[in-house]
């Protein structure tokens, strides 16, 4: 089952912290929902730095990042 982290409405670094907590649980894939470009970029880079694959999808004005190992 895909784990969903809803980080919409939160400002950085909160989305990164929530995504990292999910990453540490070790179950993939993880979907991270964000609603700003800065959050999208921060989560994308934090996950890339952690060695994960990141897929970004625009959903209306918001973004869905899918993190896989």
């Amino acid at each position, binding site marked *: 089952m895909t784990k969903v982290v809803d980080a919409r409405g939160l400002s*950085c*670094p909160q989305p990164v*912290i929530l995504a990292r907590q999910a990453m540490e649980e070790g179950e993939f894939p993880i979907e991270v929902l964000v609603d700003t470009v*800065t959050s999208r*970029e921060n989560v994308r*880079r*934090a996950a890339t*730095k952690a060695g994960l694959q990141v897929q970004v999808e625009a959903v209306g004005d918001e973004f869905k990042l899918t993190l896989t190992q």
Partner: protein
Amino acid sequence: MGLGSPDDATVYRMENGTLLVATADFFAPVVDDAYTYGAIAAANSISDVYAMGGTPFLALNLAAIPSDMPPEIAAEIFRGGMEKAREAGVIVAGGHTMDDKEPKYGLAVIGTVVPERLLLKGGARPGERLVLTKPLGSGIITTAYKSGQASPEVLAQAVPWMLRLNRDAVRAVHATSARGATDVTGFGFLGHATEMALAARVRFRIRADRVPILEVARPLADLWLFPGGTAANEMYFGQWVTFDPSIPEEVRMLLFDAQTNGGILAAIPAAEMDRFAEACQALDQPFWEVGEVLEGEPGIEVVARD
């Protein structure tokens, strides 16, 4: 100054030729201690007058206080601000407080400067050396602390720098014939450097290995705990900045990190660097030489080393 060229404060020429410098700034708490928060916010507000080469003398409080905040806490914020202002030779007289959910505090500050001592973002000239007077890292450290990702000990590394007035840094700049300076705040080191380079139509070469960064900020950068403002800085100012490919991504972001009451970034004539260094030493003011001003396409190139 006209509205076309952004600078650190508004300058108004009075009839006697003296320039009046006016600025205002306020923000939400960056530390838990109310007194320290007030003092940092005041030092930050006053800094914009220093960044113009001015001498501040009068300020008004700007505050938003939650209705459920104990009055003695609010009083500590104002006391911190007033005592920091006094250290700067500034009288705080009145102001305005409104009710809001999250506290905010800062000052509207007035100072003066004679035209010969005015420091402008566009004042840098090719051949000058770039100096920075505080290490970077306050943005990521304070946001990491606020979100429970950094210890009080880590925060304590940034606090003395955030509390420090930029007065002595500007005194040292004034010991030289430098005309270009700004203070490093919300746009981060590279954001403010870009503003200076574009305004002066020059190129800055920055030595990444010489830019001071608080050591405790580095592990936080590895975890990518940057505030939203830092990412926004990189996205906006990145178009004018090139990096040596060997410079790691987290170091690039630290160079964009939004600062609270950061240091003075100034362009000092190369022949006057000794004079600047002596003035800094006499004032017990640290500084780091971080790069140089070149002719060429306006913008910033960040090199790893020489």
